[in-house]
């Protein structure tokens, strides 16, 4: 499996971005987007992009179980939904809304490199897998031992980066914050993760989600250095704990940060003024202005 995954990463990446390679890219942008994928590749694609939220016959995670999804809606609808879920919801499609409700308001993120053909292949693949006795995507196995305070502490350390991820992924604090984290909070590029466990639907879906984070931004970052099983457990522990603690609202942190920067700037300006205190400020004007006409030298 690992071997296939690696091969997948390389080959699709090459195919997917062949059209934007230097110079050739410039010419081919308006041309076709060639994609021919084997079943094996589609499986790998599914694992990379869908599996963190969906199982085939393993029950609901963040998103619905996709077993026999083709029976629920017609192919055209499904393709349209996969390509742009937000648009379907915005258009007020009743079934799309129902899905949204079932997912407690989590919208399926747009998937990188998705095309009409690709969506078709995935649906074909799901049909094949649904027909099997036991799909390879029935769901991952996670330990369900109770969390200990040590898990929470380790999760906190992983979140802030004090403990590094084994495969070298960046710490969560780079982009995410959790209430009550530390002084200026965590990053605000991504969403606030205080209630993430609740939003995603609990321990199991969250764990599955963390195996290969599927948002457009996170995916490329963690594609080649995913989280380890021993890291996911403490992280989930920390998220659940943080949700329970639910620290103070820290939405003023960016303002505090900005003001600190401003104060620092004023300090540095003062420093400049001191360093160059003897700078030339003009000779003639002060001389003429200050020189009352003396009667003798």
């Amino acid at each position: 499996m690992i071997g296939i995954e690696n091969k997948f990463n390389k080959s699709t990446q090459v195919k997917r971005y062949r059209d934007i390679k230097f110079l050739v890219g410039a010419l081919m942008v308006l041309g076709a987007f060639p994609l021919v994928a084997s079943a094996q590749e589609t499986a790998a694609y599914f694992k990379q992009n869908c599996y963190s939220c969906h199982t085939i016959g393993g029950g609901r995670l963040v998103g619905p179980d996709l077993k026999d999804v083709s029976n629920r809606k017609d192919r055209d609808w499904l393709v349209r939904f996969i390509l742009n879920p937000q648009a379907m919801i915005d258009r007020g499609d009743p079934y799309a809304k129902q899905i949204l409700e079932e997912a407690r308001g989590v919208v399926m993120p747009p998937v990188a490199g998705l095309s009409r053909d690709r969506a078709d292949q995935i649906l074909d693949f799901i049909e094949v897998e649904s027909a099997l006795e036991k799909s390879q995507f029935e769901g991952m196995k996670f330990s369900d031992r109770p969390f200990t305070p040590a898990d929470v502490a380790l999760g906190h350390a992983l979140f802030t980066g004090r403990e590094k991820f084994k495969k070298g992924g960046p710490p969560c604090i780079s982009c995410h914050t959790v209430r009550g984290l530390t002084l200026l909070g965590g990053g605000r590029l991504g969403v606030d993760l205080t209630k993430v466990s609740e939003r995603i639907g609990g321990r199991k879906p969250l764990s599955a989600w963390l195996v290969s984070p599927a948002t457009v931004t996170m995916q490329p970052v963690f594609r080649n250095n995913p989280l380890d099983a021993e890291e996911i457990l403490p992280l989930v522990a920390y998220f659940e704990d943080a949700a329970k603690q639910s620290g103070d609202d820290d939405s003023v942190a960016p303002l505090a940060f900005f003001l600190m920067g401003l104060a620092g700037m004023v300090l540095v300006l003062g420093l400049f003024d001191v360093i160059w205190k003897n700078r030339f400020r003009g000779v003639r004007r002060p001389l003429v202005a200050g020189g009352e006409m003396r009667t003798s030298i």
Partner: protein
Amino acid sequence: MNVRSQVSMVFHLDKCIGCHTCSIACKNIWTDRKGTDYMWWNNVETKPGTGFPTRWEDQDKYKGGWEKKNGSINLKSTDKKRIVLNIFHNPHMPSMDDYYEPWTYDYQNLFTAKEGPDQPTALPVSKITGEQINVESGPNWDDDLGGSPIYAANDPNLDGLTQDQKDQLQAIERLVFFYFPRICNHCLNPACVASCPSGALYKRGEDGIVLIDQKKCRAWRSCVSACPYKKTYFNWFTGKSEKCILCFPRVETGQAPACFHTCVGRIRYLGVLLYDADRIEEVANLPDEELIEGHRSLILDPHDPEVIKAAKKNGIPDSVVASAQKSPIYKFVIEWRIALPPHIEYRTMPMLYYVPPMSPVMAVRQGETIEHVSDNLFHDIEDARIPMKFLANLFGGGHEAKVAYALRKQKAVRWYRRAVTVGDVTMEIAKEMLNQADCTVEEAEEIYRLTSLCTFEERFVIPPSHREEAIEMTQDPHERRQSTGFGFLSGPRRGL
């Protein structure tokens, strides 16, 4: 011994009448372009006065030149460390306010003004913005002591003068001043060259003229602050520095530089000096009081066979050596020792020398009578109206002895000539004076001749250019007029 040749200059201040012809000649040839309007590569200052730019000699403010520190010489404000840190804002660069805003007059108004009760006037308009301005200052705003309570009173050379001496300079009916024409000194140890981050400034090997490579200049502006004489100017339009080029296109074609050629008082001399380039740093590092002697010791005797041999070895053509042997500068500076470098304490080793000016005949008020007579033959030198200290600040690095020597010799020559032609001084006294002034009859005759009767050829002994060896010299000098800088094939224009 590393012999090099230098085209150098003597200005005989006793002959300067302050007519500014030199300035105009220079302006008409070189600095009548946009961006150079305010530059006066040649200017004539009244002393005492604050000069151009205002109080340029005040190095506490302008921080130009070199200073001796921990046994070696450093640029005062433009050494490498400081240039790197100060490259974004040069903290010792004067702005246009300290020179002047160039202006012209709205002459058109004289023709186009509507009919009215008053005569139309031509109002001053800025040559930078084209807007009307209040003229506040000019290149010789304090000419002939104009506005002296402000300007003359603030001459930096007055430092160290007693109140009596200052009063004497200024007293009504005894008011005294002299002129101080200035061009680039084409120094041996130029601060501008040393400071340039781009290496755009250079000294020409053949004749020592200091130039700015216009294609390499990037407007880092350090030369402007580095030059203690403020003789590099920033062209605000092209974003390049420019300076006096000693009319090298003229010199190369055997003509005297324009300011020299046009000089009405014939105060200017030009000729070659041979010097030892290996000893420049050592000499620039001497204590203040030894600088003038050290500077002189750099200059080599062009008649010395050793020097001639070394010059040949260094590729200096025989014709240049021959020219150096006839150089009037060598006579003034080395043989007669009456020409002195300006502000040697800046340690740039200037190669333009000044013969200090004599003051008007002395009159000392003693009680109610005015006393003209003294037993001391040189009393009017020692008690000159222009205090010796003032001249020493300008030409002696603060030390009076060298200035006194030059003035005494000048006076002795005058009295000797008076004995010869007028006869109201006995030859005995004249010879005694020559003796006291370290001068011989032959030398006095020579000084007299080169001061009073000098022909064009005697004043300007221009070394022949060797065009066959030169690159820059092969172009028509007149092509260079109106162009920015020199040696351009593509038209100079301001960058985007």
